[in-house]
């Protein structure tokens, strides 16, 4: 009990400043501008901002394992993070007549990405996404997973709610896709960048890179995104099978 209360007490910079709080508010606004510039602003009308919609995505942002924030001992995993981030969308989705097949297509690429990163990192915890694997097939899977995640985002964001909750959701989904990039950057920069410097320098670089990659994904026509995604999914399955055969 003491450990939990202590962790919550020490988490105030996360809650108020970074990666939640002030950072989340500003970054989500900037991201929405970026999405609007790419023609992918959420198409669904924004529901009134309510505590019940804002809190779940904000919790994910607050608990993201992003340096230089102090580590939080009770981290999330990918299914929990996705569920919390998708809560505002689900609230709207319940009242909309979206075909089940469309729903499947929405989540096809994110789930293929989750499959790739689960195999590459051996688990579903978000903090594992920061660990750059040693073997080449796992490295390829992690990169492929991050790419598929970012490629699937435009469709997921387009068919989603706007407003403050929608903006926090979009930022959370982008930052989850940023984690493997951050891991790769940290592995590449590790030999020549001091740890303190890496903690301050690399997260912004990874976030900007992910945002730029999302900008590219926004400009990919949906039909092409589907084809690339299908090819990527097939590659994930092949690599996952290969990785599984070499590990076990």
């Amino acid at each position, binding site marked *: 009990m003491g450990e939990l209360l202590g962790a919550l007490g020490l988490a105030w910079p996360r809650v108020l400043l970074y990666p939640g709080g002030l950072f989340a508010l500003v970054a989500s606004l900037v991201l929405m501008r970026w999405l609007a510039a790419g023609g992918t602003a959420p198409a669904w009308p924004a529901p009134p901002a309510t505590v019940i919609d804002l809190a779940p995505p904000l919790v994910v942002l607050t608990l993201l394992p992003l340096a230089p924030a102090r580590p939080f001992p009770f981290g999330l995993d990918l299914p929990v993070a996705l569920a919390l981030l998708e809560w505002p969308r689900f609230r709207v989705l*319940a009242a909309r007549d979206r075909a089940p097949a469309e729903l499947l297509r929405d*989540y096809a690429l994110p789930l293929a990405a989750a499959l790739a990163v689960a195999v590459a990192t051996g*688990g579903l915890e978000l903090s594992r996404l920061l660990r750059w694997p040693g073997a080449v097939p796992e490295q390829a899977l992690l990169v492929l997973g991050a790419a598929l995640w970012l490629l699937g985002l435009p469709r997921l964001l387009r068919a989603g709610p706007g407003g403050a909750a929608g903006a926090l959701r979009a930022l959370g989904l982008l930052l989850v896709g940023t984690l493997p990039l951050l891991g790769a950057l940290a592995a590449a920069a590790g030999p020549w960048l001091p740890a303190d410097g890496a903690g301050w320098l690399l997260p912004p670089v990874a976030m900007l890179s992910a945002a730029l990659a999302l900008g590219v994904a926004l400009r990919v026509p949906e039909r092409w995104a589907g084809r690339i995604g299908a090819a990527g999914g097939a590659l994930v399955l092949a690599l996952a099978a290969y990785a599984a055969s070499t590990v076990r």
Partner: protein
Amino acid sequence: MVLRNAPLALLALLLAAGLILAGLAHDAPLARQDGLLRADALSALLVVVVAAHGLVTLARGTAHRWSAVAVAWLVAMAGLQGHLGALGGLLALAGLLTGAESLERAGLPGWSRQVPRLAPLGVVAGMALIGLTGGEWNYGAPLAGAGLNSLSFALILVAALLALDARALAGEGAPASAPILASGCLYALVRLFSLGPWNPGWLFAALLMGGLIALWGAWRAVVAPVERAAPWLGLSLGGMAIAGAGMGSAAGLSVVGYALLLWPALRLGLERPVAGARALWLLSAAVPLSGPFVAGWLAIAAAAAGGVPALTVALWLAALLAALPPARLAGAPRPAGLAAPTGAGLEQGERGHPDAPLDATLVASAPPPGGEAPDKQEPSHPAASTGRPRAEPGSSTASAAVRPALTPEGRAWLAAAYSAGLGLGAPLALAGLLTPVTAQLQGGLTPFGEIVAWPWAGLIAFDTTRQPVATLPSVALAGLMLVLSALCWVALRLLALREH
């Protein structure tokens, strides 16, 4: 009066007995009469689950209350048998008695209704084969597993699938599963771990069938009219349980146990539901920390811990799909000015095509805010023109008996409370009911994955090397969400003040 409440009292007694048994068998199984009567944590779990299902059946309303009680008691007694023949025999007897209750689904063809009630015969055959082949009928005996072979395993697996009415996936009608019998058949399947480890072929068969049923059932739940999603969601949950058994690990068995515990909540809220009841949100896996959310997480985490990523994604997708029907039902506009909250709507619908959409007015409605007694309300639909529920055709006395013990709104709130309690209290349920099951069946399990309570945080899943693979810090999340909700509320109030 005493006779009218006797079924309720008997089922409450069974529930209390199950909980007491869970406490007594927490550390070690209890055995009497040379092992002919044997109770362990799995038996206690079965007793609790079937008692809960029985209570749900009464709350939802049935013309066959005594039949529901008898079936629940028989299946519970089957769980206390150490003799394989007695176990199967009591399940089969329960199946024969289930007939009357299953007749409520009058929209289905006659032969279709017989399949789930005859499913325990597969358990009888499988258990008899084990006893005859191995020469040992007491499953607690050291060499009891000698008779376990692929045929006996297949018979019991097929019995579980038929009890869930998985064959409905291939047809158009809704599944007519008998939840108490299905729980008994799933118990028989899991009981095989007492006899020894399953071979990889059996594990794969159970994984494949379970994953397929979970995903396909969830899909059918989404495409079916929302008020008819409950049987499909139950089937999907049953598939998740079979997949959990197929993982053959402690984590997988936690999935089985949790799915069995959750099923009564889904039935309570979603069978003969009330449209627009906000409480039904808590039966959606989309709501963080609800029972279905935790069930989905357990299944995903167990598959990840077992190193089966394809199953992880399949179960994840199943949980995503299964989240939608309860959310849609909760978000649907509440039909205004309807008659008594009788629960008669679905019975009416069941006489037509099983998947045919219901007229909005046929969905059971809540009493008006004034709280007027249902019988005094102005009827607005022929189905409720007497202010009473519909009875089975030809049954003049049944109409009073079918009257649900709780209004649909009341059931929705009770189911929501059950779901929230099971979700937030998942670490307690795991420690009190499920961990003893996995500990006592450890001899038959593989080391591929374990889910344990994370002290003062929530749940954590470990892989075979004891590395954490998935985390659900539900207590920490709830605490943080409270803090963030307070901050958001203050911010929104400040914004509102500024706008004014």
